[in-house]
């Protein structure tokens, strides 16, 4: 272990690239988990310490590096969120609850046009109004910002053009809301309306007025914001596979639907420093954004995260209204508060991309997945936001959990004149995952095998690599499937239920933290940092920048510290709100917080513990090797009565070393390939999940009711089972909304028709079925105490599980989301006409007759189960890469073993020949810089 992990295959050492980049799969990296090189207390004799206080407990999947830090305090126990008493007493302060003396109310003037040039803005009447303190327009801030440094395309307010209805034009602050609204209405803007684009396919074409101008990087004269091409594997083998399911999906745009509308308060203090209070998931990027927009150094800004009333990705961009508040506060000299109406929340959006996805799933006659072919066109709306990443995620995140023969992906994201899409729970993976899983269901049916068996016989094992080079460490996929199969009674129900009743399965795969941070400062900048401070009272204050958005990150980090130091939770206090006191954390996105922040916290806590242990050594005379931390005491392991209290040891340590502080950081180990885009989808660990859903379909009305769902999620280790279950059930609720009812509806003229909670249909308590959350623990080698994410991944499988259940119920394959009653009713009518049935109540239901492949796959699945177990408990850790199932040698480059094996990230003309593929068309354009002079 001391040498650290090595990534398979390849050898470590000499093969360094001259450009300083890493060579894929060819390096050693540090001891997992803490990102450091010095595992603490490695001598602690865990066999001796009683289990009740954290002694050795055999883990079903083998030992974990953090086992030796287990003290039995809180890890694995269901504890309430540490801030829940604030929430249940109404004392939690959210954005709009920050009220400062002398505050002014800010209002934003928004564009009434989809797309227009601003000829002039006259603010004089507004400025002259009594009670108005400041008016600002685009001219007050000309600097660009955006969450991704590569695609900064936003401004605090429109510069020369407005790009969607609701785009920010100007803002005012006044003594009260009424005056602010009046002033806002007194601003006169002269627009020249431009032709707007609403259909994403139009975005692929050249346009006279592209929505943004990327200068020499502009792709043609089109509205293509990002395009991706990835081709890996044996494409010919894929194309000649006998079982094929191709489908063309249309999925609607979605909003996060958090209950708290955005709100922000900005104030410049007498010393000229700016404090911004805002419910942000990613305070650090806002910090950077404010600095750029206001042209002031970062140290002049304090970003104060308030309680966040739900985020789900929708509060993770730096937002223009946050800039507006700061600008107005600067101009007026008074604190400014802006809070959104529900409709404005939809205009700022950043929700799930409306998408058109062409999905091909191919299977060969041995029941293997010969390939997955995806073409995803996604509608980015008016700004880039996280879209660069989304474009990758729509493809690269289906290179697991299955072993596949080939992967062929084209993706494109276009700008349209709609509110911007962005990151939303399950970022980029949800729509295409649904398409993959439905495809898998369909090919299993063609092969006459049970889709459950088909999945079980095609899983990547633990400690393997995907076809594009993602390093998969732990996986609990097999156990997830096995559990839902058993608990749902799958074997009796599948294809056996009467018309209108159905059961379906779906799987999910998601990143647990993104391998590369957005603001990437190679090697040096940690993803997460935690500082601990312990004073004479013996309590420990944790300083972290991780943003608790309701998922419970404060609780998780408190648990990690409490566990290592053997202190009860009430002795740990979290300070995570202000950038002034919190070390940088990259924020609550890509399911990174528990994994990264808790790892940093464990490291910091170990450092603190060692200082205190040293003091205990001096007091007791026993070396730390024979000392054990128990509940608020440090004692001699052979005689628990001998020891010192935590406080005594702390006091001694302070006397010896002065202040008692410690700090820990986490950075990801280097991983992955070197091809363009290799970093997208890389994660230090991945989560896996499998759900079974049961539905009732009313064939006369098209209504689908989910009656029950069994939801198994592999979160590595449930640090707090109560919170993990909450995430699973909550994810189910959101996913059920996406599959059955939620959509951002655009009217015939491109207007968003339902910017409110009445017509944006979030499921109520009555639609919510009984969800059985099932926690699977695969004990991730690098996760804190084995943990991985549980916040986003659990959303993915519910969509395909429901779609597949609908098929089981009525024999109709879904390819459009949401499956609202009117849509499904149309499909039912069409289906009836096609198969010449008059009354939908007479529809035939699909039935299952196992074919010859079924038994082959059952046996293979059994063999694989054994294989995986051996890899888990470390009896077999031979290298394994995607392809072994197809007979490849994992230690040799694939290209050497198979003629025609492709690894391409730039298409050839043949690759783009199929005119029916949409995203591929984005590659028909040439970037301006490559176009020579003409």
């Amino acid at each position: 272990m001391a040498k650290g992990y090595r990534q398979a295959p390849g050898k470590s050492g000499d093969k360094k690239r001259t450009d300083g980049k890493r060579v894929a799969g060819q390096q050693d990296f540090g001891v997992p988990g803490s990102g450091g090189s010095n595992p603490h207390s490695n001598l602690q004799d865990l066999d001796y310490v009683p289990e009740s206080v954290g002694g050795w407990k055999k883990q079903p999947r083998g030992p974990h590096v953090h086992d030796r830090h287990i003290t039995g305090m809180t890890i694995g126990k269901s504890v309430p969120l540490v801030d829940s008493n604030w929430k249940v007493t109404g004392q939690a302060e959210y954005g709009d609850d920050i009220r400062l003396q002398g505050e002014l109310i800010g209002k934003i003037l928004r564009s009434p046009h989809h797309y227009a040039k601003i000829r002039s803005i006259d603010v004089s009447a507004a400025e002259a109004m009594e009670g108005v303190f400041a008016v600002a327009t685009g001219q007050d801030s000309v600097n660009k910002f955006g969450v991704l440094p590569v695609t900064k395309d936003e401004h605090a307010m429109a510069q020369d053009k407005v790009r969607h209805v609701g785009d920010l034009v100007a803002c005012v602050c006044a003594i009260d809301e009424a005056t602010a609204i009046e002033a806002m209405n007194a601003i006169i803007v002269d627009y020249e309306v431009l032709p707007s684009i609403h259909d994403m396919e139009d975005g692929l074409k050249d346009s006279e007025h592209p929505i943004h101008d990327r200068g020499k990087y502009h792709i043609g004269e089109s509205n293509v914001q990002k395009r991706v091409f990835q081709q890996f594997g044996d494409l010919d083998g894929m194309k000649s596979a006998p079982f094929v399911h191709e489908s063309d999906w249309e999925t609607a745009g979605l909003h996060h639907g958090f209950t708290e509308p955005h709100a922000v308060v900005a104030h410049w203090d007498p010393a000229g420093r700016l404090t911004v209070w805002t419910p942000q998931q990613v305070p650090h990027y806002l910090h950077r954004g404010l600095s750029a927009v206001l042209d002031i150094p970062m140290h002049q800004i304090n970003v104060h995260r308030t309680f966040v009333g739900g985020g789900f990705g929708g509060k993770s961009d730096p937002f223009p209204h946050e800039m507006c508040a700061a600008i107005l506060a600067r101009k007026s000299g008074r604190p400014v508060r802006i809070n959104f109406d529900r409709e404005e929340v939809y205009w700022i959006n950043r929700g799930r991309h409306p998408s058109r996805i062409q999905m091909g799933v191919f299977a060969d006659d041995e029941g293997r997945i010969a390939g997955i072919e995806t073409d995803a066109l996604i509608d980015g709306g008016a700004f880039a936001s996280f879209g660069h990443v989304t474009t990758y995620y729509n493809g690269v995140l289906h290179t697991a959990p299955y072993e596949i023969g080939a992967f062929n992906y084209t993706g494109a994201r276009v700008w349209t004149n709609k509110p911007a899409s962005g990151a939303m729970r399950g970022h980029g993976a949800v729509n295409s995952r649904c398409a993959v899983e439905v495809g898998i269901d369909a090919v299993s049916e063609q092969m006459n095998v049970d889709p459950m068996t088909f999945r079980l016989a095609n899983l990547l094992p633990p400690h393997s690599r995907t076809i594009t080079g993602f390093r998969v460490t732990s996986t609990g996929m097999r156990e997830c499937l096995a559990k839902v199969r058993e608990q749902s009674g799958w074997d009796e129900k599948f294809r056996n239920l009467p018309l209108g009743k159905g059961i379906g399965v779906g799987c999910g795969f998601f990143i647990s933290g993104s391998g590369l941070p957005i603001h990437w400062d190679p090697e040096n900048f940690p993803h997460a940092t935690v500082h601990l401070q312990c004073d004479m009272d013996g309590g420990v204050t944790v300083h972290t920048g991780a943003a608790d958005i309701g998922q419970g990150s404060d609780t998780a980090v408190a648990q990690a510290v409490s566990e290592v130091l053997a202190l009860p939770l009430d002795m740990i206090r979290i300070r995570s709100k202000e950038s002034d006191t919190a070390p940088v954390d990259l924020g609550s996105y890509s399911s990174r917080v528990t994994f990264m922040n808790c790892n940093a916290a464990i490291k910091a806590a170990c450092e603190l513990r060692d200082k205190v242990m040293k003091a205990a050594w001096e007091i007791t005379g026993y070396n730390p090797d024979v000392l054990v931390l128990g509940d608020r005491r440090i004692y001699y392991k052979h005689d628990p009565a001998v020891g010192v209290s935590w406080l005594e040891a702390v006091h001694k340590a302070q006397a010896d070393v002065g202040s008692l502080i410690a700090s820990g950081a986490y950075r990801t180990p280097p991983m992955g390939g070197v091809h363009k885009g290799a970093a997208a989808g890389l994660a230090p660990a991945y989560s896996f999940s499998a759900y079974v859903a049961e539905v009732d379909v009313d064939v006369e009305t098209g209504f689908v009711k989910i009656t029950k769902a069994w939801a198994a999620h592999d979160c590595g280790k449930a640090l707090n089972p109560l919170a993990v279950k909450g995430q699973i059930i909550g994810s189910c609720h959101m996913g059920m909304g996406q599959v059955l009812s939620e959509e951002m509806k655009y009217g015939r003229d491109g207007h968003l028709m339902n910017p409110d909670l009445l017509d944006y249909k979030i499921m109520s308590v009555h639609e919510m079925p009984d969800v059985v959350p099932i926690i699977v623990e695969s004990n991730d080698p690098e996760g804190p105490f084995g943990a991985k994410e549980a916040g986003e991944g659990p959303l993915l499988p519910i969509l395909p599980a429901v779609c597949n259940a609908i098929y089981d119920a009525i024999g109709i394959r879904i390819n459009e989301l949401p499956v609202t009653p009117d849509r499904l009713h149309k499909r039912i009518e069409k289906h009836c006409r096609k198969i010449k049935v008059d009354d939908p109540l007479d529809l035939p239901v699909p039935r299952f007759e196992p074919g010859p492949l079924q038994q082959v796959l059952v046996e293979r699945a059994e063999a694989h189960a054994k294989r995986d177990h051996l890899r888990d408990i470390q009896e077999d850790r031979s290298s394994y890469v995607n392809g072994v199932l197809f007979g490849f040698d994992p230690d040799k480059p694939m290209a050497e073993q198979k003629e025609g094996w492709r690894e391409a990230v730039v298409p050839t003309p043949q690759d783009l020949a199929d005119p029916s593929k949409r995203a591929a068309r984005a590659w028909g354009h040439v970037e301006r810089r490559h176009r020579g002079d003409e």
Partner: protein
Amino acid sequence: MRMPPFTLHTPENLAKALALANELDNFDWVAGGTDLLPNYKWHLNPKPNVISLAKVNELTALSGTVIGAMVRIHDLANSEDAHPLIRETAATIASVMIRRSATVGGNICLDTRCYWYNQTEEWRRSIDWCHKCDCDTEADCRVIPNQNTLCVATYQADLAAAFIALDATIHLASGAGARSMPFAEFFQLDGMTRNVLKPGELVTHVTLPEDAKNWQGAYQKLRLRETWDFPEAGVAAAWKLEGGKITGLRVATTGCESIPGDHSELAETAIVEWSGKDSIRELADGVRKAVKPVSNTYFPPAYRRKMLRVLTRRALAPLEHL
């Protein structure tokens, strides 16, 4: 969200309310406010004066045959006295929280709804307004363009269908005196005028015929979620059985057009030669043909029409084997 400025008046009894109504020339009644206040927040035709009926006690009578305008929907849904069909229908309205404020009168006089209208002021500015709230622009209707005389916004109150099915009478009062009429005649086919109420006139109560208790019924409501959502189509049916024979049948719809629909003539014809399932099917087709929803609510009109047939069939299911 900023309320438009208005003065709220809270008269303590009916006489004072009607007197006040005579005095003020431009005002709205407010009962529970669950329809009026959202509309005001969005600045949909607000008036400078609002007269609240909250304190007017004369309007709260509730029995098997009399239902006061100020009876709260929640009380109606839980009342032991009210007709079962009325109770069933009331329980489907909005959510329990809204039902605690909402009233029968407000439900009957509910403003018509439309995707292009029930939006914020900002939003409506982006479509250059529409005829129903045109902000002095003479804007066109956005649903059926090139005409600016009629508004086809949809009447989406649930109770009306049940009242019509039970052959209720509606009672109005104004400074000029009281009048009453069959329930269906209260409505006017225009999304803007909506009903026959004259300025200063209000709904006092609804009465059901004496033998209403001998009528049974069912209400079927089309909506995506089982709470909050307005009816995208609603069918109420009421029937009277005597000696195993249907001696009366009435069917009414709501949520489809600017006014609720009374299909009792169709129903009366159907029972002359009742043949169970087939009659139901025929009647359901008739209802479907009689109603023409437009595209201004959540579900597409074609779907709503088709569902009328299913809803009617389901409402009449108890009569299948007669």
